[in-house]
């Protein structure tokens, strides 16, 4: 019963990972035979300012994206946790962007964020702000990109929190209210502790998402990846560029291996923490 899956894991996960590890120590361009170069690829990458830029860009987007996305998801969940027709319709509307294809998201948002005729700047103008080059000014481009990603992810985070909130036992809430706990106190000492698992899950999933963030970043500037001035060049975009634009398979493999290691550490930490929490 497991055979097809076993073949898949072996052929399409295990072997590629091992190949990536081997190739990361070689120099080749698809047409030549891999030549052993030791740690040259790794050393070369860390001396490459564009690589460093892709790492810092990714870390910035991870930090801001995870923090803002998780708090917005939790905020909307708390706001709309009640059952009922109106709130569930509102939740559905906020969730809706999650199913919009990234290509369409990228197209619509490039249009909305346009400095001249974009809807956002027209709105901000009413408050005397702007015009801001949301995707054309290197200082703002990452935030413009984050806006469109958050549009699509907040709803997903929200529904996980709503599910967890609805599992908080009603009698515990009643007991807290009888003991004279106000809404803030109830949240911090009764509701929040029961959200910890979902919170951790969302932080980990979002972190891994931003580590491999590619699609919308590709769509906003497909002909000049990372534009303007490499401000939106994510780690995955640069990996793609190394492999399929420059044909530096060794460099791409080295980047794959580093992504693999860092992601594995995050996943490992997640399982370790949730197991410990489960034991308590």
């Amino acid at each position, binding site marked *: 019963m*497991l055979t097809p899956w076993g073949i898949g894991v072996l052929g399409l996960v295990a072997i590629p990972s091992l*190949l990536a590890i081997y190739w990361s120590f070689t120099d080749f361009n698809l047409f030549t035979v891999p030549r052993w170069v030791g740690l040259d690829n790794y050393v070369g990458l860390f001396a490459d300012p564009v690589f460093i830029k892709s790492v810092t860009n990714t870390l910035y987007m991870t930090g801001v994206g995870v923090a803002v996305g998780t708090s917005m998801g939790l905020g909307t969940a708390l*706001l709309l946790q009640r059952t009922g027709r109106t709130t569930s319709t509102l939740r559905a509307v906020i969730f809706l962007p999650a199913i919009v294809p990234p*290509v369409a998201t990228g197209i619509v948002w490039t249009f909305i964020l346009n400095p001249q005729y974009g809807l956002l700047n*027209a709105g901000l103008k009413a408050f005397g702000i702007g015009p801001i080059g949301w995707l054309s000014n290197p200082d703002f481009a990452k935030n413009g990109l984050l806006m469109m990603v958050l549009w699509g992810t907040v709803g997903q985070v929200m529904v996980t929190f709503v599910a967890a909130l609805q599992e908080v036992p009603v009698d515990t809430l009643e007991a807290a209210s*009888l003991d004279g706990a106000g809404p803030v106190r109830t949240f911090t000492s009764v509701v929040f502790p029961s959200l910890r698992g979902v919170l951790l899950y969302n932080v980990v999933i979002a972190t891994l998402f931003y580590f491999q963030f590619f699609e919308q970043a590709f769509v906003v500037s497909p002909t000049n990846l990372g534009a303007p001035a490499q401000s939106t060049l994510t780690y995955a975009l640069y990996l793609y560029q190394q492999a399929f634009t420059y044909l530096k398979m060794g460099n791409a493999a080295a980047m*794959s291996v580093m992504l*693999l290691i860092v992601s594995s550490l995050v*996943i490992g930490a997640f399982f370790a923490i949730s197991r410990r929490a489960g034991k308590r």
Partner: protein
Amino acid sequence: MISTLSGPTTAQPVGVSPSRLPRRRAARQRSRTAAVLRLSVGITIAVGFLIPLLWMITGALKTSEEVTASPPQLIPSSLHLENFVDAVNYIDFWAYLGNSVIVTVFSVIGTLIACIPAAYAFAVLRWRGRDTTFGVVLFSMMLPFPAVMVPLYLIFKNLGFLGTLAPLIVPPFVGQFITPAFSSALAIFLLRQFLSQLPYELVEAAKVDGAGPLRLLVQIMLPLAKPVIVTVTIMTALSSWTALVGPLIFLNSDSLSTLSLGLQLYQSQHFTAYNLLLAASTLFVLPVLLLFVLTQRYFTAGATQGAVK
């Protein structure tokens, strides 16, 4: 299964002791004000989330001058439905659509064929090393695709898959459907979760009746697992329909493009015909929106299961 978008409509009792009636009335007044406030904030946020979609649809109905007017023209002068015809004629729409349908259908079939038996093996059958092997599933559920995309490209090249749709069609059949939104590993996880919650007496009863593991799966468990199978089907179809990375890397010719990739190519080549671009996007998003409206609860079931369990 938890469905958080359209949950049951049970009102939560307010826990106030009956001896403090005047205070209770004041509290009720206050909570009503809070509820109104909460609702209006909620509506504002929801409208904000809806605007980009509305902007896409109205933009698809404008002329090319209206769509780039500054300040923006909110409502199209008249409904320029011909934009949809132009957009379809402008690109190889039907060929892209055909490719998208083929890839989506095979992804769903492959995922169900590979993942249902695997989930069954993890949930019901007892064998040595089961939990360790399931650890591999959990791990691969979160593994970043970019980490393996370069080796995969070369493996597919050596297998002669490049230049065909095979790189997107074959992996689901061996339980390796991988997109940013959904994956085979997640499908196995959801299916296992469901199957392992079924009462074990079912298995024992089937054994007494002399049913083998295959009959037990097909005749008893599959009918019961219908909701989760529907969830997996919808999630696979949706993420296959919308995926960009896979098609971008493995389908390097225009005639093989899926709609996702085709739209992307169209965007990079004709960046200026915004109304047509938005019309094409609308046509691309429409089936997904329809699917969502019809099967809402399965979407959230897929989104929440991993988190809460």
